[in-house]
């Protein structure tokens, strides 16, 4: 299962890399260009997945959409890890008032539904690739924070932390050399599962007309546009971006589950 997931992910990466190049050299039509094409033409040899209501090629848009989806998700999840993990270690290790304040903030963020929070932030920040990433990242920081902080609180009572302090290690040395490697074990799993979730949230933002600017082809906004045409029998504008999103989420989930099994196996092997 996991290897299937990895394989699919690789396909997406290739599509994300190659599609813009092909468009640049004229092998594929421009995804924004619609005026000379017929509108709502069904899948044919000219347009493999048909065209949408502005006459834009659905196939190219779907391919190019994978690029922006991967970028936004990657940036958002990376940012969330870079913020959540150090904050979690710091808060867990130092404890006291600082810990309580941060935990309160993070738990508050966590109680707000994911979509609601990202809609509000996306609305406040305006459209843009980086802004959309931030809107997603804010949602995921508390998850990493929680996992890492709780792990840290557990690990910091271990004898080897005390031993490190007894040889003169300061708090930052302890966190970097002793805590970090021992608390991030569950992060990779969370990371892939969150990435799957982030693809969906990004799609929802696009569907609601938030997140990315209109000039960037994106699955969510394409789905929104396709909605009007579905009742009159135009199925291709909704189907292909939908399948693209579905398969990407599935692949990421498979990889996540695979990683989890692998980690469990490794841990039980060590004990």
């Amino acid at each position, binding site marked *: 299962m996991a290897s299937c997931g990895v394989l699919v992910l690789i396909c997406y990466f290739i599509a994300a890399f190659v599609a813009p190049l092909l468009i640049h050299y004229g092998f594929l039509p421009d995804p924004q260009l619609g005026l000379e094409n017929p509108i709502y033409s069904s899948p044919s040899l000219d347009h493999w997945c048909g065209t949408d209501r502005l006459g834009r090629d659905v196939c190219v848009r779907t391919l190019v959409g994978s690029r922006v989806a991967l970028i936004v998700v990657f940036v958002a999840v990376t940012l969330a890890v870079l913020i959540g993990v150090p904050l979690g270690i710091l808060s867990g290790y130092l404890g006291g008032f600082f810990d309580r304040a941060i935990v309160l903030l993070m738990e508050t963020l966590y109680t707000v539904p994911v979509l609601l929070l990202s809609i509000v932030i996306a609305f406040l920040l305006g459209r843009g690739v980086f802004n959309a990433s931030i809107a997603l990242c804010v949602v995921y920081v508390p998850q990493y924070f929680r996992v890492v902080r709780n792990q840290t609180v557990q690990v910091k009572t271990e*004898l080897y932390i*005390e031993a490190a302090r007894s040889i003169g290690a300061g708090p930052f040395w302890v966190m970097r*050399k002793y805590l970090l490697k021992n608390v991030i074990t569950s992060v990779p799993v969370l990371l892939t599962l969150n990435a799957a979730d982030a693809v969906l949230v990004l799609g929802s933002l696009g569907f609601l007309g938030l997140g990315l600017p209109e000039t960037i082809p994106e699955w969510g906004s394409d789905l929104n546009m396709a909605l009007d045409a579905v009742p009159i029998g135009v199925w291709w504008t909704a189907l292909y971006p939908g399948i693209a999103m579905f398969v990407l989420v599935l692949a990421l989930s498979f990889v996540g589950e695979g990683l989890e099994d692998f980690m469990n196996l490794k841990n039980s092997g060590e004990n």
Partner: protein
Amino acid sequence: MNSFSGDILKIQNLRMCYPTSSKWVLDGFNLNIRAGERLALIGSSGSGKSSVAKALVQILPPGSICKGDIFLAGKDLLRLQNNDLVKLRGELVGLVFQDPMTRLNPLMTIGNHLLDTLQAHESDKSFLYRRNRAEELLLKVGIDPSRFNSFPHQFSGGMRQRIAIALAIAMNPPLIIADEPTSSLDVAVANQIMTELSQLCDELGTSLLLISHDLALAARWCERMAIIQDGKIIEEGPSRDLIDRPLSFLAKRLVDSALAREAKVLSEQPKIKVVLEVDRLRCWHSSGGFPWRPNWIKAVNEISFSVFQGETLGVVGLSGCGKSTLCRALLGLLPIRGGGVKLLGQRLETLNRESVREARKAIQMVFQDPFASMNPKMTALEIIADPLLIHNLATRSQAKERARSLLHQVGLIPAEEFQQRLPHELSGGQQQRVAIARALALNPKVLICDESVSMLDAEIQAEVLSLLSSLQRSFGLAIVFITHDLTVARGFCHRVVVLDNGKIIEQGDSEQLFHSPQSELTKKLIHISPSISSIGKY
């Protein structure tokens, strides 16, 4: 009383192999135990001694192969049906494990543990009968029946082990197997537990199979011993004879190392330079009470002693006497509430933070549990090099070079073979050697050893102790050796301080203290420490 006579347990040509390996863990194992007899099964780790216990109650992992004959009270175990096997566990054999905490369900009261066992075997009896019987059992192992509804975590290690014993004797089995029952307990509690266990065995006429690595403990409590190596019994006989005249190579080695553990490994050291001076040190924690009048827990109360260069000072006491608090306070891991510590002539309490950190490089510690004291994600080399990097004493490559030479010094040769291993890839003795190397990396003048050998096999204890004393000679180290085991302290320490309730109750030269103890506690400690030299002809 049990009505069996003759051999309770008869194991003939037992061969056993775990599902994942092709090696026979037990290979041609023979053993007889008579009714009411106490037999000790002795072996180093990995010799298959715990597998014997598992084979006897048939709790081997599925897929294991077990051949041969095991007759327990006349029944052939290997040919029993599953239902009969369930009856067998508890009714014919009781099992007492090493670590009682992990064997008790933390969500069940101890009373329910007993009721559960009784119900499994005597479901026809009334609830009231079972309840009475459970209370009776608690009383028998010395636990107040009013604690019927307490949970396992509310008991100390010794008490938990008593509960485990109560569970084992619940059905009056003719045989009790005790697998290292006392190795996680301190000497005094271990002594109590063993006394009770053997008394109960005598009272009920039960046989005892004691599985242990400790020759002295086994010789003290069992009349007969069997030594196991590579899944075979290689020597068997009355304890006394075996210790006096060991025949096989392994038995000789075990007796030798048990003696080496107690032997004097010290050279007389002129007392020239005081390196560590502790003056009326107090470590109090407040627990509740008013802010202006807190209730103090006086873990360490007005302790004064001094340690000379090249000298070993033993700090002896029962668990909870403040030994561990003392060494944590000396290392600066716990706040000090009065009194002073003078290290190499510098008074630590007058220094600022940074200078204290500098000064503390001269005092390092080796912990009790070597595995827990090392970061599981760091290799041996990184572990040893880390102190140098923390204090910015060397570049990365210099630190590694130094770490390699330290590995060499603590006897992990060739260093190349050990340097890349993670802690779990090292044996217990090797782990403790790495921990010692780490403590030596900063060239300390004082080494604190907090029960540093108590978790190791007797054989390895002797090795580590002789390593420590040779390092002491070559580095001129002062060692503060914290232990509950007076037998070890006697041979290893120049002077001994006895602690009780955070106070020093007796101190003096170890030999003198051993021969003419003054306080009651010291006398008791000497009496209960299992010592092989007091059993055999030595």
